């Protein structure tokens, strides 16, 4: 009863397409169909935040969006944060400098969430950053180094980096 649909979208600035069953969520489409395994799937019910991607400029849970709903959308995954020449996004540089990760499972979701959030609010203070990542669960770091990295990335972004 479920018929595959053809979808066309842009992922990390490049055209992408696929034949998807309506029940396939965007996270599985990115990983299984496009091979973009940077997006991690943790809980698949919208709690852990690991699968966060940027859809039409705003952070969203890839496990809570059907791939068919992304037809025509512009999606940025963690693979699309760095520039084409490999220069890391300020939030990636800051995660590196401040040890913002240990096991790395939550990292793609942390990076995409913070990249989108800091683009809008590079001057965000610690409380605002903690609220912004309240939907991203990390079981290693205790969040301290992640928050430090986000504050540092905000400074880089404010200075035009």
């Amino acid at each position, binding site marked *: 009863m479920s018929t595959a649909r053809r979808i066309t979208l842009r992922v990390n600035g490049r055209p992408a397409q696929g034949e998807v069953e*309506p029940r396939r969520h965007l996270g599985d489409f990115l990983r299984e169909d496009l091979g973009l395994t940077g997006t991690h799937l943790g809980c698949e019910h*919208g709690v852990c935040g690991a699968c966060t991607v940027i859809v039409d400029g*705003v*952070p969203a*849970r890839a*496990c809570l969006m*059907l791939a*068919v*709903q992304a037809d025509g959308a512009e999606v940025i995954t963690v693979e699309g944060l760095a520039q084409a020449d490999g220069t890391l996004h300020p939030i990636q540089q800051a995660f590196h400098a401040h040890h913002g990760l240990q096991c790395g499972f939550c990292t793609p979701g942390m990076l995409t969430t913070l990249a989108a959030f800091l683009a809008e609010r590079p001057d965000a203070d610690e409380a605002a950053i903690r609220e912004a990542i309240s939907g991203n669960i990390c079981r290693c770091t205790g969040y301290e180094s992640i928050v430090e990295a986000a504050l540092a990335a905000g400074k880089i972004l404010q200075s035009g980096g």
Partner: protein
Amino acid sequence: MKPAPFAYHDPRTLDELIGLLSRHDNLKLLAGGQSLVPMLNMRFVIVDHIVDLNRVDGLAAIGDRNAAIEIGAMTRQRTLERDPVIARKAPIMQEALRHVGHLQTRSRGTIGGSLCHLDPAAELAGVARLYDAVLHVAGPRGMRDVKMADWSLGYMAPAVGPDEVLTGLTLPVWSEPHGHAFVEFARRHGDFAIVGVGCLLALDGKGMINRAAVALVGVATAPVRLTAAEVALTGQAPSVATFKAAAEHAEKLDCLADAHVSASYRQRLAGVLTERALARAATRAGGADVHR
């Protein structure tokens, strides 16, 4: 953690949508998907048809009608959080939205989805109740209005038929200057509230309360208005004693018990949060600081 198969429909017009609702059974409407998709993924919900509202024209708009705000059902929570009309005329909605899920879920989540999912702790349902919102429902027999007070038919059961759809709501805003506050307690930020309280408070020229509205979420299956306290507050001077007396009405509410907390815990919390919300609203209304 994958949904069972379903047929997917993404109508472009309200007429097309209503037609689908009339033709198909065992169907769910997909708004923002931040509650429905988890339930599909976990197969708590297994349906034959998903009808996606995201591409239906005209369901996502915010209109300023002077004494009221018209809000389309598919208006995203993120949009409401940043909207200048909401900021000016119903800022309590934005204060409440900070507690609704997380940044990422508010990007997709909609006000209509919140109202139709009707979780007992839903902050936006509480705000709608606080303003005596009127909900607009479309179906094969045309449009009809439902008062927020009549919206809940029971636990997570809104007054919308299987062949109907919520298209939007009218929020009658307060014309007089007033203070507002939305406070809640949850185990972690973004969790479902154990109890949430919203209140609006207007003061007259002499600093006396001349209009009050208090609504609570999380205490019962649907948002509750604290009418007895609203009456008791009117005509009083804002003070710790006044607010403590009003909060006693909240402590008498018939509260839910669940796996997390007992009914008596909720009653106690309802009282504490009502007092806090009233104090904050009074300060914002221009009254003296009545925080303890």
